[in-house]
């Protein structure tokens, strides 16, 4: 089954829409979902032209396609556990929160908190991602716990904050403090970043671009070889963050390491 949701023009296009109802399993039986525009409850049809093509017996067979002005729609794919969502343009915050299975493809850019507290499944963002990609919620000790988030472009600050499991791959650059408070899982940064992995207590982070000046609290611990994008790289291994318990691993390219603490 294909569900195509095309946005209708709105009088106040900047008011955010919250649409946690847009997940494949919800279209199996009903279409009368509620979404919120600001503080007003609306029917899905009030904000979208809805087209349904073909049948489905399980959520795995449902594919939801969002097109139009989708950059202000928040919480699409929240608690999604099967099927597929394809967003033709940009998507708003919190796309794929708590997602446990299935697939989300964002053809444009994703706003902040992409895949927040994700448990499983896969998110592919073909454009750039905002801050807190693959991160956790305020005050919570564990962030993303499973699944994969892959960003083909760049990502903002605090990528994979509190990462506890699963994999976050950013092909482009990351902002400040990616992998901060990381405690498990894997973070791969294809481009540059600054101050990776502050206060990490576990997990592995690999930076293939320039990591800038490393924090003083990382201890050099040999070298290793790593592969990314079909190429092999000689990587310097750091253990840290020593200011905390120092159980995490940070890999930095030997030839690009601009400075050593």
């Amino acid at each position, binding site marked *: 089954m294909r569900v195509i949701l095309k946005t209708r023009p709105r009088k106040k296009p900047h008011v955010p829409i919250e649409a946690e109802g847009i997940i494949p399993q919800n279209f199996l039986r009903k279409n009368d979902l509620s979404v919120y525009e600001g503080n007003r409850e609306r029917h899905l049809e009030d904000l979208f032209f809805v087209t349904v093509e073909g049948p489905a017996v399980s959520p795995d067979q449902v594919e939801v396609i969002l097109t139009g002005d989708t950059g202000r729609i928040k919480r699409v794919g929240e608690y999604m556990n099967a099927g597929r969502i394809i967003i033709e343009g940009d998507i708003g915050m919190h796309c794929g929160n708590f997602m446990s299975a299935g697939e989300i493809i964002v053809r444009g850019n994703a706003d902040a908190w992409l895949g927040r507290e994700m448990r499983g499944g896969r998110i592919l963002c073909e454009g750039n991602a905002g801050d807190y990609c693959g991160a956790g*919620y*305020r*005050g*919570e*000790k564990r962030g993303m716990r499973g699944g994969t988030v892959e960003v083909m472009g760049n990502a903002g600050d605090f990528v994979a904050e509190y990462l506890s499991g699963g994999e976050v791959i950013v092909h482009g650059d990351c902002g400040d403090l990616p992998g901060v408070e990381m405690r498990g899982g894997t973070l791969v940064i294809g481009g540059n970043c600054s101050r990776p992995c502050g206060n990490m207590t576990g997990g592995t982070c690999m930076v293939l671009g320039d990591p800038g000046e490393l924090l003083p609290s990382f201890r050099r611990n040999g070298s290793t070889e790593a592969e990314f994008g079909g190429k092999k790289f000689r990587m310097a291994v750091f253990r840290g963050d020593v200011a905390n318990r120092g159980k995490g691993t940070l890999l930095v390219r030997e030839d690009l390491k601009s400075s050593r603490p």
Partner: protein
Amino acid sequence: MTQGILIKNAYVIDPLSGIRGEVMDIAIRDGRIVEEAPPGSQVIDAGGCLTLPGGIDSHSHVCGTKVNFGRYMSPEDMRAGRTSRKGVMHVTSGYSVPTTFGNSYRYSTMGYTTVLEGAMAPLEARHTHEEFTATPHQDMLANTLFDGNWSVMEAVRDKDVKRAAAIVAWTLAAVRGFAIKLTNPGGTEAWGWGKDVANIHDPVPHFEVTPAEIISTMIQANEILRLPHSVHLHCNNLGVPGNFRTTLETMDLAPPAQGNRQTLYLTHVQFHSYGGTTWRDISSKSEDIARSLNSKPQVVIDMGQIMFGRTTTMTADGPMEFKLYMLHHNKWSNHDVELETGSGIIPVYYSRKSLVNCVMWAIGLELALLAKNPWQCLLSTDNPNGAPFVKYPEIIALLMSRRMRENERKEIDPRTEHYVPLFALERELDWYDIAVMTRAGQAKALGITRIGKGFLSPGAQADVAIYPLKPDQLDPSVDYQQVMAGFSRTLYTIKRGRVVARDGDVVVEGANSTIWTRSRVPPGYDMGSDPEFTKKFDQYYTVRLRNYPVQDVYLPRGVCIETEAAL
């Protein structure tokens, strides 16, 4: 409010009036229980359901600086239990430290109409009172902290009981407090230097007084002031393996009762009944504690039961929270209050997989089952330290059903039984015991029967809870699920003659009272004009003496219990 209520066919248990389960009618007029309801009264048919005086929590942390800081630092806790505005109900958030309205509504649907806030730092009393007014469905009382009060400790050092009493009288009146609370006496002052006291005979740095001296002096001061409640004590060494010795020594400090009231109230005793020497060999010493309790009618305790799951611990016992933080390494807040006390907050998770937690869980229940007299052991979780108060129904069910305890035994760490006597205890509490442990006992121990709390005979305040439980058709030892469900949600909660909650929904805005105490002292004992006291105040506090007392506007419906001090 001339409209009355007539509750018909109520299965009443009213321990203070000597009613042990009797189907009868209750008439209410102008917020009081009366002989006969006025004509045109609303009639409520209780249909033989269990009807009790409104519940009273004699030790709970729901309002004030540290409770609010528990909320402030825990957005993850706020994600649970969120409800939106509905009718007269405000938005609520939170599970272990809910918002004030969250606390109030949840207590109300459980039939609780009176709650004592376990610890209020005098300097920050205004904050507690502000939150009291935002907890509209319960009458509130505030235990006032004196454990590290410099002026008190100096009076103790000088062996001047009368001065200590005068300081307490002045402070309680100034901050609109209800009773004397001592939390880890002396330890909170030592924590000002990052230290603690090791036992009740370990002197406090600089002040050179021992916790035992502070406790004894404050008990005497309390009796001099004739306060309604006794000293309310959180013993030293909370949560330390082997601390039962400290607790037993402390219980020995309680002088024999004069009259019908206890001279010492020990709170959350579960946390103070540990044997062993380390966390590895911790064991239950509930039998020793209960033996001592059973021989001392002058002592009342509350359980401080823990229940498995997530919660937040918060106490004025700063050093203990830091020790706990070093175990959990999650997050830790601390807030020392100048010249007075301290406090600490950390989130915890009590796990069935942790032997230590299982032993703790068992100890609380054992205390209630081993205490011969239910009037001496009251039900509490030290909310939210042992568990949020919404777990009370589950605790009631555990106490009433051995079968439920056996079922739980299968879920917890199998080694537990080697460290605790719980599973050998056959006792199952009955409805009467529960009525005592959740309202009548509290009313008596707090000394608030004099204002009509805790009973249902004419003259009492019309605080009534009707639970969807039919004691004559129910075997609590088997139907424990029903007991749990029934105590979670009243059919009706009536507060001062008004139905405030029905079937789990709060139906009125609410307007509570704050109960406080004032002891009249002779002019020579008025600390407000004592030169030494005021000089100390000017030099060491960072708030002016004149800006310290809580103004009347903070107690829109204050109820003052006045006593005549024997000074």
